[in-house]
């Protein structure tokens, strides 16, 4: 879980200009190339292997039909539908909780930022496998009988990403000035939030949305232990029926993650506020 936490800031913010480095270090240039080639192999070979495996056919031939056939596979659409539903519920609750809170803390209780940062780290300290034990123990039966319980818990897992994304977004804008201007022109709090603050947070919001959705689509631990067939659980279960399809879907999942993060970096680069620290 921690894997996903701290990278956001690193990938999406500050891209410092490359320091001009030209020096007479012939040997180290080769060492550098060697490192890059080895790393490239380690990361690309499994992708290639998976691709080869996915397009292979049982008679030793090659066919791309497996990709086209994915939507028709048993249970695939159900798994996607369920996962989308969980993602939407988790996303709405996360944004409703995090956006006003982050704005409020920045405006009124800046000293609380540290505390809140600590609170959002808690889901990392509590491994998902432990959290789900407790959740299944204390959840009322009506909730336990529905997959929506998962969505409610996913909110807790999404809080760190969402909060961090918004927090850095809020730091980059002159929030107090914007809010005071809006208020003194007669706008209420709701109006100020919706038409002044949120438009200035577009890329931070996008980052929060993408990371939350990616989290829900990748979350396996809780879903499998709560015995609902979300997308990743389906991949594992379906492997028994057809491993090629599972591998093909895994590759597509990687491409999907790539596309989503690329989207964030695109929007982020266009914004590039000068006071980014």
């Amino acid at each position, binding site marked *: *879980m*921690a*894997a996903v936490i701290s*990278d956001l800031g*690193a*990938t999406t913010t*500050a*891209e410092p200009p*490359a*320091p001009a*480095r030209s020096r007479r270090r012939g040997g180290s240039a080769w*060492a*550098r190339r060697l*490192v890059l080639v080895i*790393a490239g192999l*380690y*990361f690309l*070979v*499994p992708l*290639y*292997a*998976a691709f080869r*495996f996915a397009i292979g056919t049982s008679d030793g031939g090659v066919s791309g039909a497996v990709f086209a056939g994915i939507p028709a596979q048993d249970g695939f659409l159900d798994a996607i539908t369920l996962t989308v539903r969980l993602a939407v519920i988790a996303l709405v609750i996360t944004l409703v*909780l995090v956006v*006003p*809170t982050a704005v*409020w*803390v920045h405006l*009124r*209780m800046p000293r609380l930022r540290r505390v*809140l940062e600590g609170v959002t780290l808690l*889901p*990392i300290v509590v*491994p*998902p*496998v*432990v*959290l789900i*034990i*407790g959740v299944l123990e204390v959840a009322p039966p009506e909730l336990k009988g529905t997959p929506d319980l998962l969505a*409610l818990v996913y909110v807790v897992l999404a*809080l760190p990403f969402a909060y961090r994304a918004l927090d850095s977004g809020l730091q980059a804008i002159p929030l107090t000035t914007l809010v005071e201007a809006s*208020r003194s022109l007669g706008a209420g709090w709701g109006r100020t939030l919706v038409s002044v603050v949120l438009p200035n947070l577009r890329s931070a919001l996008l980052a929060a949305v993408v*990371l939350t959705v990616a989290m829900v*689509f*990748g979350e*396996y*631990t809780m879903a499998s232990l709560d015995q609902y067939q979300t997308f990743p659980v389906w*991949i*594992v279960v379906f*492997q028994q029926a057809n491993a090629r399809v599972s*591998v093909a*879907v*895994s590759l597509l*999942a*990687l491409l999907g*993650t*790539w596309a989503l*993060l690329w989207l964030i*970096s695109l929007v982020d680069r266009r914004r590039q506020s000068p006071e980014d620290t």
Partner: protein
Amino acid sequence: MKQREVPAWVGVVPFAAYTVVFLGVPVVAVVLGSFVDPATGAFTLDNFGIATSGVYLRGFGSSIGLSLVTALVPGVLGLVLALAVRASPSLRLKRAVATASGVFANFGGVPLAFLFVATLGSTGLVVELVKAVGVDLYGAGFSLYSFWGVAIVYGYFQIPLMVLVITPALEGLRPNWREAADNLGATPVQYWRHVGLPVLAPAVLGCMLLLFGSAFSAYATTSALTSGSLALTPIQIGSFLNGNVLSGQENVGRALGVGMIVVVGVLMALYALLQRRVSRWLQ
């Protein structure tokens, strides 16, 4: 702005309440349950006794061992990769590595497991390739489904994670330090020994702690890969939920959970401390 003063804390109540209900209450339930004898409902320490002996103690051992290995090795490799990328003049390469690291570090455990089954599984591409040149990996005792197999797979998200978290710290290495060292006649080795590494050390250590935590609580990759045959603590906890429990030991899973929280909690506290020192350093 100061006319209608609402007490400031009111604004954080919904957030706090949600966190308490969906995180605080379940965790308290796990902690309390870990002290309960399932037969009588009385207070007991037996769950912890069982959780810290036999197969469960070995589980903690393997989990901590795997997390150490996959924090240290990918940590060093990630550092080397990040340094190589930083030294490269190509901006395109830097961007590509930054995006790729984000993708791979975020790449969920399950699809990852399948990539590696196709690569290093018993009929995987690389296994077949080296067999063609006469090396039988599985015959030599390697297995993707063993400790070292899983460690190789973890590298796939741990190395990118290291690159992501260490890259900002590398910016703290001022180019003029290197120039100063060069001008004073220092060899590259001397530069790294006396300047580079001491400056980077706290950041590297902090990042490795993060990698440790990430590997320690990982469940999906191992579960999908080994279907539970490799005895790591998260997998053992999961099997309690799946109902594979001896009667009378129902709460041992909770004790194991408390054990995990304690381990990760201590590490995260260390990480926070280090982070504070590092950020002061790099001001």
